[in-house]
């Protein structure tokens, strides 16, 4: 068991790509930590650098009490599960799971025993002598997990371990991972570009972009209070509405209309300041008549989401999306009014893109975040 402390980590590849820029990050002992970000933002690079598969150009990595920055991968006592699982096709399940133990010079009988125990624990009991090619994707994934577990690491590193599974298996495996982590409490770094996975699994998560960490926090914090415009536009199953606005009296003026100032920003803005109003589609309401401070809009199209409708609207300040309940979908062409929820809407400075107000309800935890 070990915490991970990463400071000032920089990685520049031989081709000049700066994949990590001064990354600072602390992952607590036993924590399930997700790394989220768009493709190419450096998630895999960060994970591989923690594993020791890439050497950083600058910075430090401490696992537990040990500075492992210059250490080869083996003695770091980490276990990594690759996106393609990297199961050895010429070994059966037992040998695959036991391979790390073989390297640790555990005797043959002892390692087979431990492989069987771990395999059984992960529901592989009946297939210990099969080759990887004779397993389904979900089973292969569990063999890869079992191999990682059997090596008794201090840290688990997962690189998009579920991305090769179909939607249903992915849900199952997600639950499975969550249970496994609850059982073992091993510090876990989990790379994904699927935010629902991060939200579902992680104790805390980091959002990366262009080799920089843009926000660190619990999934709830990151979802409810994205620290900057990048995170705001990246997180959420439907992207947050971001409307250019200006502070005007006690309101934010959006085109010809106005909305109330988000509560968390009250008292922190100056009159006339250019801002961006952030409203999640789920946290806005549609009204057929103007109510208080609301934004006039016309319905362009409605999409059925299963339990709700996503309504695409056109306003004077640009397109806006709102999720409404199943009972009351408006018709295309209707004129409606968008009412924002001041407790849930957010305000960003237009020049810096930073959130106005405390970054999280537990202010302080995320100080290392947004830069």
């Amino acid at each position: 068991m070990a915490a991970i402390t990463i400071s000032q980590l920089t990685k520049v590849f031989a081709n000049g790509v700066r994949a990590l820029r001064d990354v600072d990050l602390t992952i607590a002992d036993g924590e399930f930590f997700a790394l989220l970000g768009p493709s190419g933002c450096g998630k895999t690079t960060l994970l591989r650098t923690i594993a020791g598969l890439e050497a950083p150009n600058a910075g430090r990595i401490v696992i537990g009490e040990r500075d492992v920055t210059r250490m080869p991968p083996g003695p770091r006592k980490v276990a990594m599960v690759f996106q393609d699982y990297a199961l050895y096709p010429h070994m059966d399940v037992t040998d695959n799971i036991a391979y790390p133990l073989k390297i640790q010079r555990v005797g043959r009988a002892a390692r087979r025993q431990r492989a069987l125990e771990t395999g059984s624990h992960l529901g592989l009991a009946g297939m210990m002598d099969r080759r990887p090619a004779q397993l389904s994707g979900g089973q292969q994934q569990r063999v890869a997990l079992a191999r990682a577990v059997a090596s008794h690491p201090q840290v688990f590193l997962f690189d998009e371990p579920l991305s090769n599974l179909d939607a249903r298996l992915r849900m199952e495996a997600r639950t499975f991972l969550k249970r496994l982590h609850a059982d073992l409490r091993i510090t876990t770094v989990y790379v994904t570009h699927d935010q629902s996975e991060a939200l579902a699994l992680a104790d805390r998560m980091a959002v990366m972009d262009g080799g920089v960490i843009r926000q660190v926090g619990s999934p709830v914090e990151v979802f409810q209070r994205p620290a900057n415009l990048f995170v705001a536009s990246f997180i959420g199953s439907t992207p947050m509405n971001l409307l250019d606005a200006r502070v005007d009296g006690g309101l934010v003026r959006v085109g010809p209309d106005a909305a109330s100032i988000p509560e968390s920003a009250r008292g922190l803005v100056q009159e006339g300041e250019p801002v961006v109003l952030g409203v999640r589609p789920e946290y806005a309401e549609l009204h057929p008549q103007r109510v208080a401070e609301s934004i006039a809009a016309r319905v362009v199209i409605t999409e059925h989401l299963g339990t709700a409708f996503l309504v695409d609207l056109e306003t004077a300040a640009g397109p806006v999306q709102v999720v409404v309940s199943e009972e009351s979908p408006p018709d295309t062409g209707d004129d409606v009014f968008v009412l924002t929820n001041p407790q849930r809407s957010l305000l960003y400075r237009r020049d810096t893109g930073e959130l106005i107000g405390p970054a999280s309800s537990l202010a302080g935890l995320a100080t290392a975040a947004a830069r």
Partner: protein
Amino acid sequence: MPPGVPGGAASAAGLSRRWAVGFLTPAMLLIGVFLAFPAIWTIYLGLTDFRLLGPQALHTKFVGLGNYQQALTGGDFLHSLYITVVYVLLSAVIGQCVFGFTLAWVFRQWKGPLRRVMESLIIVAWIVPGSVVAFLWLAYLQGNIGPLTETGTLNTILGGIGLNWWLQLPMLSIVIFNIWRGTAFSMLLFGAAIQAIPPSYIETARVAGASGWQLIRDVVIPRSRGHILTNLLLISLWTFNDFTPFLLTGGGPGNQTQFLPVYVYQQAFQQGALGYGAALSTLVLLINLLIALAYMRILKERR
């Protein structure tokens, strides 16, 4: 390379440069010492009068381009070069290539045991060791004169013509031998080339009314150009450097089959003129290089 990384940038397997160099060294050493060095050293040796025996064995002199002068004006080398080129053209470039293509074309649509038997027969001729096939052909073409006083299989079948192939038609015999021996490679290569042509090409031409010959000329040959050139390069190089004629005729009768490898061997090891042999080696290497470079050039242009 990032500073401070143990052993330099590491690869997927954790091979640092130092490990990689270590892994490469044995192979590169062998190649360097036993392949590259001799090729370069022979240039120097060819400028000396190095001999195995006799006074020059002790006092090797630098003779400059004397060996080359001897080779290029003496007649023996030029004769040897000439008949070697004829041998390569007749047996490899025309014989093996055309025959191999014909066989690949005829076999193209066959499945079944007959084809396998035929192909195996042809391939066995190619893989049996040279010193065995040499004797097989000595026996096969034997006439009733010469060191073996009996008659071989072919003359027995042909019945009393009494032709002693090896003495009377040595060049033709050796050309036929080499076609027999080497056609398998061309057949296999062209077989693969023909397999790689999409059937729709051939069908389209057929529907348009192309005859078999037109089909080959307009569809098959243009589509297999790379294979044909590869084949020509390899079989030319192999035939040019083939030492089996030595086992068959020892270069004779007279010097009628004294192809270059045989000539080099005789000069260097039977006459003991290693300096002159080294000069000849250099010339053979140069010719090999020319064949290979010409081929690469053509291949690049055609791409």
